[in-house]
């Protein structure tokens, strides 16, 4: 009887999930996070879930950890003291950065603080040209003298980024060898190993972040590991990476920059797994919690991944994307659009008299007005309560008693400033929050060239299923899936994910003049590296899957499109097909393609996946009962499409058996979430207890 255990550390709670591999039975638990030393909360959560359910640590096949420890170290500036080494003439690479301001109109702006101070940035004489030829041979004495200076500065970690090292790492390798022999205690991150892609600042930033978090992350993982081992946990210890794949603690400690977005990736992986089980391969995930909503896109059963990512970036008014306000990393990150719209988002009236929602949130303290904890400003949760969508006596399963009068007072204040009545104002708050989410969904679908109507919507997070109904109407989703226990659904993602390692190399070759032996040679190298790593992590040869990609563009463009390549050895006969595929993709994303225009492969990319057997979701069984047994009453709920408040039936989700189908309007309650079924929609309960909502118009 083996199980898997997942531990997901968030800002407020540390969630523990155990799934029985044979039966699919799931246990959940949560403890308060311990930000000062997250490993304390980690062990508390682990011990508690095992003890409460009388599970033996040695029966855990493996443990998966989702963590923000890497991100927090960057944002809170608790990185290891690091040095930066680069080519002569470029000491200020990190400090100059992209030379732009993070905001356009703030005369008091500050530039992004460099992660390594100038006095710990060093130059060595060496130079390659853009093809990787040596222009200036490496001055070994420079490296030695830098190493001596670094020794005096008591540096814990070193990042090395030499110009064009992604094409030819020969000089970086020399630097690495000298540093490792002269400074055996200091960890060394080479840009050619961490992120071998062109554009020096982005590669340097990625490498520096890796160097800065490496000692922090490895100490953290080591301390967890030794204590888990002492408690009798014998299974493999794994970490969720930003790309939605797992890797062992040991590998993660070397390239921790791959796990900066470990936490949010889990939700999308859970949605991917759910889709696999239900036969949906194209989905958009909507994860709405207390302060933010995150949307992701899954295509052909694979989450979309981006390499255009910045840690700590904030979108601000007047600046658009917020590009340039964070530290860029060039490792694959699951593509998520995150906006400040959650249950706690505050509604306000701006100086021009317009109603706005968020991005400020009442958070957990003081919380929405209806919590009665001192919050006076109206929030999205207050609006949901006023409109009857939330059950005041059953919020978090009754843990928090919601105060309808306080919610009404808060929204009335807002309504009078707007000259509206209470109901219109409350409904307006929801509409504006929904519109923000619709925009986020457009960003991740339409703006990336996908039609949302061809996708199923998966709604989770405590607030997701409250809002997904309106969003589905707005964007024309034909199917919405609400998984069981939406509030902790994310954590399930930790337990249903494959081991995965991503590799890439910049090749910059025109497709017409492509030297296939070179490309194939590089792919073989990457594949070997991937198989080696997975072997070290205990994956059997037959469980390894290799996927190949090429990142291509028209010669002269700056953004690449990623294309799947056929399995196996590339032949010249594949090239025409690849070019056709590129033209189609370009047409889909940008609305045009240019026949005859030269195309180049910028990077090749390879994913090595170690297949882990997915547990089957547990079937809830068909009790043969109808929806009546789950009917817990009715209350007055506002639906604009019905012209106001109507008497709406309320159901207990846990009593809804497989095969039941109902028509909206309906409210379905469970302890950690509430699902709103709008008029004109039907809901079916599948064998796993998922709610499948479909429009009656088809």
């Amino acid at each position: 009887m083996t199980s898997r255990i997942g531990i997901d550390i968030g800002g407020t709670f540390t969630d523990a999930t155990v799934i029985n591999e044979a039966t699919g039975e799931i246990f959940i638990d949560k403890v308060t996070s311990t930000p000062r030393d997250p490993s304390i909360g980690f062990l508390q959560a682990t011990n508690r879930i095992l003890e409460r359910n009388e599970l033996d640590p040695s029966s855990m096949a493996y443990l998966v950890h989702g963590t923000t420890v890497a991100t927090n170290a960057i944002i809170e500036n608790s990185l290891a003291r690091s040095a930066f080494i680069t080519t002569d003439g470029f000491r200020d690479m990190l400090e100059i950065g992209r030379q732009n301001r993070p905001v356009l109109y703030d005369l008091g702006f500050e530039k992004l603080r460099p992660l390594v101070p100038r006095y710990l940035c060093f130059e060595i004489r060496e130079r390659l040209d853009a093809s990787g030829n040596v222009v200036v041979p490496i001055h070994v004495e420079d490296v030695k003298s830098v190493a001596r200076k670094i020794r005096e500065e008591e540096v814990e970690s070193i990042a090395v980024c030499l110009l064009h090292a992604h094409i030819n790492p020969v000089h970086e390798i020399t630097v690495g060898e000298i540093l490792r022999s002269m400074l055996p205690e200091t960890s060394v991150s080479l840009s050619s190993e961490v992120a071998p892609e062109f554009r020096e600042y982005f590669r340097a930033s990625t490498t520096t972040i890796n160097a800065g978090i490496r000692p922090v992350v490895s100490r953290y993982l080591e301390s967890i590991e030794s204590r888990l081992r002492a408690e009798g946990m014998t299974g493999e210890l794994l970490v969720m990476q930003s790309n939605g794949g797992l890797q062992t603690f040991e590998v993660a400690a070397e390239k921790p920059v791959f796990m900066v977005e470990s936490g949010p990736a889990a939700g999308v992986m859970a949605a991917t797994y759910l889709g696999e089980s239900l036969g949906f391969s194209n989905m958009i995930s909507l994860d709405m919690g207390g302060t933010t909503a995150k949307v992701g896109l899954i295509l052909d059963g694979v989450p979309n991944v981006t390499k255009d990512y910045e840690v700590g970036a904030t979108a601000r008014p007047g600046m658009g994307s917020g590009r340039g306000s964070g530290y860029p990393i060039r490792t694959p990150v699951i593509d998520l659009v995150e906006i400040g719209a959650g249950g706690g988002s505050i509604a306000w009236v701006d100086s021009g008299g317009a109603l706005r929602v968020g991005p400020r949130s009442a958070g957990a303290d003081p919380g929405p007005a209806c919590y009665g904890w001192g919050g006076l400003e109206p929030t999205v949760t207050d609006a949901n309560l006023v409109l009857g969508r939330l059950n005041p006596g059953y919020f978090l399963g009754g843990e928090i008693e919601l105060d309808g009068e306080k919610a009404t007072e808060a929204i009335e204040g807002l309504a009078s400033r707007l000259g509206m009545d209470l109901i219109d104002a409350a409904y307006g708050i929801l509409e504006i929050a929904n519109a923000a989410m619709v925009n986020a969904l457009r960003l991740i679908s339409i703006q990336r060239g996908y039609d949302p109507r061809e996708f199923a919507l998966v709604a989770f997070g405590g607030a997701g299923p409250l809002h997904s109904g309106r969003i589905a109407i707005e964007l024309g989703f034909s199917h919405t899936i609400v998984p069981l226990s939406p509030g902790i659904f994310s954590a399930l993602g930790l337990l249903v994910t494959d081991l995965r390692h991503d590799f890439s190399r910049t090749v910059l070759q025109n497709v017409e003049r492509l030297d296939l032996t070179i490309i194939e040679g590089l792919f073989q190298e990457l594949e070997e590296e991937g198989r080696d790593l997975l072997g070290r992590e205990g994956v059997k040869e037959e469980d390894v899957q290799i996927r190949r990609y090429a990142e291509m563009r028209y010669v002269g463009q700056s953004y690449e499109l990623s294309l799947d390549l056929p399995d196996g050895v590339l032949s010249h006969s594949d090239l025409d097909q690849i070019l056709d595929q590129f033209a189609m993709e370009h047409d889909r994303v940008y609305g045009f393609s240019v026949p005859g225009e030269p195309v180049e492969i910028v990077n090749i990319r390879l994913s090595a996946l170690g297949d882990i057997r997915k547990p089957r979701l547990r079937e809830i069984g068909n009790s043969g009962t109808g929806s009546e047994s789950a009917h817990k009453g009715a209350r007055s709920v506002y639906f604009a499409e019905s012209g106001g408040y109507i008497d709406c039936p309320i159901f207990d989700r846990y009593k809804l058996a497989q095969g039941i189908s109902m028509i909206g309007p309906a409210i379905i309650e469970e302890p950690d979430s509430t699902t709103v079924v709008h008029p004109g929609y039907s809901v079916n309960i599948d064998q796993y207890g998922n709610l499948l909502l479909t429009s009656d118009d088809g």
Partner: protein
Amino acid sequence: MRLDPIQFEVIRNALLEITEEMSATVRRSAYSTNIKTRADFSCALYDGHLRVVAQSFAQATHLGSAVEVVPNAIREYGADNIGPGDGIVLNHPYIGGGHLNDVTLISPVWYKNRRLGYLATIAHHVDVGGGAPSSIGAFTELFQEGVIIPPLKLVRNGEVVDEIFQLILAQIRSKREVAGDFRAQIASNQAGIHRLTALLDRFGAEVVETGIEQLLSYTAQRIRVEVGALPRGVFTAEGYVDTDGYTADPVRLAVKVVVDDDGVLFDFDGSDRQRKAPVNATFAMTFATCAYVLKALTDPDVPVNAGFYGAVRINAPAGSVVNCVYPAPVVGGWETQMRLTDIIFKALSPALPEMIPAGTEGMICHAGFGGEDPRTGEYYCFLETLAGGYGGRAKSDGPDAVQCHGKNTENAPIEETESSYPVRIVRYELVENSEGAGRHRGGLGLRRDYLFPDHEASFTVLADRDRWGPHGLFGGLPGAKAEYVLVSKGETSTVGAKSTLQLQPGDLVSYRTCGGGGYGPPSERDPVSVLADVRDGKVSAERAREVYRVAIDPKELVIDEEQTRVLRGSNGVD
């Protein structure tokens, strides 16, 4: 009809979202580094009355660009001559534009057989022909600056009019790149039409048009409140563009800002007459500068549209360097505008001392070059603009090496530049000791060295600030001036800030941009901050002693408190 606050909020966000999506399309599908990486473009949406409704942009220089050029172009061409699927192209500076490199593409939006408005993308193309690669240089008349395109139908009924396209491309050096950028603009307008149509389908034309009307009056209301909160008075300052490229006469800029019950008036009466030199700015450029200043002084949350632009009032005499007339050359007009921004802020500094920074880089600082790429035989063009020091502020130092005010383009990555163009960047670093000293010091300038190992390139410096550094405020010192250097066959020489050089293989051009001005007396700077700068090598120990009056042991990196007291005491401080 009046929309409720909810519909209003939804529609206003959707309108802005349309222009953001247009931007994303341009950025991702464009070819030139200047557009794709440096984001030197903007996208805008207009209503049927040719008023700007929403605009997305990353460069403040594009703030006003959309206001003049599109309405003028449509009037010139005749709205009735433009049908669904058409696209009007132009770059004529005297039809409301900036310089010739800024090419505008306008598409009408038709809905149910009615013209509801227009969409436009304005992008800085790397080359539009003319006397030097990248179309920048010290020219004396407009005709030397490149191909002049009056409003023309480049797209007819969804198809590119090939004869016109070929005529334009024939004037241009880097044809493939520029053709790609044109296609990106066309794709962007199509994306915008697609999205706006979806919005109209969703809400109906009446609701959307009412929303637009309400958005403009909402914005006007908000900017009125903001302007009302500014300190009243008449504020003046004057200053100079260092050189015009031909004479030793600096170009005088006179600024008077009047803040009264009617709002803000920017008056430039007394500024120099236009010159036969590349320092003249069109009215549209001056408008952009004033719009930027107003935006920086008010709540950044106020939307940018005709409601906001209506608050920008300007008196710029025709025929002056801030409102030049045909056929004055305009390619360096933004250099003048960047300086004008600093001078407007200088005028306002006594009224808003907590907010206004000391003098910034105050120039666009172009580096443009081109020639035949020996690797391919193709003609290439490259253009970028270099950052400098920002001015010190009341509460903080001026950031080092950063784009100032109207410009905010990213730098071109060295590895990308070297793989695409036959140039080698051999140095890119901060210029030590270039900061304007102050209680809060100015930022450092930066140095960038371009080496041309194997071909004869033509290189144009179009910049400024090589005579005077940016001004200090309230006792702060000016930043170091800029320097432009040519190294040829072992000989080093200084070159003018507006000059075109014919390089030999092996030649090197080096930019050292100016530092920002300091804020407050340097002797009041916290010695700990001075020590940090010395440790970082940004300021030398000698300079710390002489200018900041802080004694630092450069080996041990400690402050000699006693000597510092003596040094500062002797200055009358303490």
